[in-house]
């Protein structure tokens, strides 16, 4: 290595192009976000307009995904449903991540006793079965998406807390953290500038994959009747409503189901790709 003063190596290469399947997953996520943000621009029909004359029509030009038992356009219902299913999944995972990161960071920096106490609390939440909690919340607050959000939020944050606590404990042993402490940096500043930036990538991976899992959990709870109520076009509820017509109208079940599957896959693929590449950002 040269001792030359101007040995600043501007080695900021562009990262290599991700594999095709990852690009496809990104496109899918972009389309889904559009669905969630501006459904009224994209949906050909109203999601709740009844049209009894055209009930249970198979997929065709007028109704790409067919119609349901009340003649509503399933394609439009799926588009509007994105906001409920995916939107709620994103909200749940982001709030859980926000709280979990703060909790885990405090626990990771705390002394042994406080850390132990905080982690036992996490264990309690971890051990709680989602379904039982969702039933309890639904019984207390009534069925609906807000009950689902509450139940899942309570279940979701401990995963982040554990992840971040472990990472913080690992990173706080690094020489640059000790060097910062030797300069007099402590507490929140130490956390924010010298530890959290190295935890963020792990959290990003987790958030991305968890959105898919949260989506499955939301649709599952709605499918069981604990979540969205008619006529909300939530995907899980669409699948629930389609059960009685499965023999005659396969499209009613298949298209919302495919949406759940493809969305989860898209987030899962993106998460895996982030996980594979996360070492790139970990400067030398």
């Amino acid at each position: 290595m040269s001792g030359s003063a101007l040995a600043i190596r501007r080695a900021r290469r562009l990262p290599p192009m991700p594999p095709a399947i990852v690009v496809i997953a990104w496109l899918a996520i972009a389309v889904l976000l559009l669905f969630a943000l501006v459904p009224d621009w994209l949906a050909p029909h109203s999601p709740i307009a009844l049209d009894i004359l055209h009930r249970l029509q198979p997929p065709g030009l007028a109704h790409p995904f067919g119609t349901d038992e009340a003649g509503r356009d399933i394609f439009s219902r799926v588009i509007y449903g994105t906001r409920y299913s995916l939107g709620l999944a994103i909200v749940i995972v982001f709030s859980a991540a926000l709280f979990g990161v703060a909790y885990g960071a405090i626990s990771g920096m705390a002394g042994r006793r406080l850390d132990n106490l905080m982690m036992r609390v996490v264990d309690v939440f971890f051990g709680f079965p989602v379904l039982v909690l969702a039933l309890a919340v639904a019984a207390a607050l009534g069925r609906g998406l807000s009950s689902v959000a509450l139940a899942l939020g309570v279940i979701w944050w401990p995963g982040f807390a554990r992840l971040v606590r472990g990472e913080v404990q690992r990173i706080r042993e690094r020489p640059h953290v000790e060097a910062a402490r030797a300069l007099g940096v402590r507490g929140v500043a130490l956390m924010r500038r010298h530890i959290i930036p190295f935890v963020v990538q792990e959290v990003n991976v987790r958030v991305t994959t968890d959105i898919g899992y949260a989506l499955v959990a939301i649709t599952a709870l709605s499918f069981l009747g604990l979540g969205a109520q008619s006529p909300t076009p939530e995907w899980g509820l669409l699948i629930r409503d389609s059960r009685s017509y499965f023999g005659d109208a396969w499209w009613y079940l298949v298209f919302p189901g495919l949406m759940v599957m493809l969305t989860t896959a898209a987030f899962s693929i993106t998460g895996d790709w982030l996980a594979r590449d996360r070492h790139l950002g970990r400067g030398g």
Partner: protein
Amino acid sequence: MLAVRDLRVTFPRTGGDFAAVDGVGFDVAPGEFFVVIGESGSGKSMTGSAIMGLTPPSARVAGSIRLHGRELAGLPDVAMRPIRGREIGLVHQDPLSAMNPARPVGAQIAEALHIHRLADRQEAARRAVALLARVHVPDASRVAQAYPHEISGGMRQRAMIAMALACQPGLLIADEPTTALDVTIKAQVLALLAELRQEMGLAVLLITHDMGVVAELADRILVMYAGRVAEIGSAESVLRAPRHPYTRALMQSAAISELPFKQLLPAIAGTPPGHATRPSGCAFHPRCPRAEADCAVVVPPLQPLPAGALACHHPLARAAVPA
């Protein structure tokens, strides 16, 4: 300004505590270049960490560390904060891992000023560039924008020194600052330390294992072995007339004596005692050419000399000038 007395850093272990530092004492005067020398495991770095209050959580620190008469040993982390960086600067062995890889060099220097409320953000950023220029980093304003991995090893160590000096501490602890550098850069960094000490009246506590490093710079030298003081004295007396067999062995293994070319440098036989076992009596006795029966039994006390102190039962004669 710095007075260390009977410093002990112990780690609890089954079957008796392990003392990484065992009764070390020394003084550093303002503006003095003080060198602590010893092999790996001699406790020299742990001594530095103890002064900064940065020993591992499991370590117990006993004894006294006074800075300007104020006791530092046993101070809680919160109370150490205004001292770290502000009154004692620390230069690390490996600047690449000691710098935050995700922040530009200049921002990290400015942080020291900002943390101790010596400057607002803009002023701190401006002074960071001036500090880089002060440690002879050419093109300082560009280097300030660069990330640690983008600059050379020598520049990184200079930046590290700038960081340690940002708040104008009276004492700089440099823990093997040249180990990660190649030979020419090493000489430059040492010259920089000497210059700063001269011009800023800075006291420097240099921790090293390399006798070659200390010969020209040191005012006083502390030789450590297995957590204890072997010999302490003025550089002149320690280097010209080492009394402890270990000091002489260290000197002979460094290429500072004018040995004819191609003559092999003698190595010190054996290895320094590890964490598992410490020899009884004088810890150096299994490797010492002058060891006698009493060395294996009695710990040699530290006895004052005209220009220092010595812990040896059978020291070399005063006149002995090796090589």
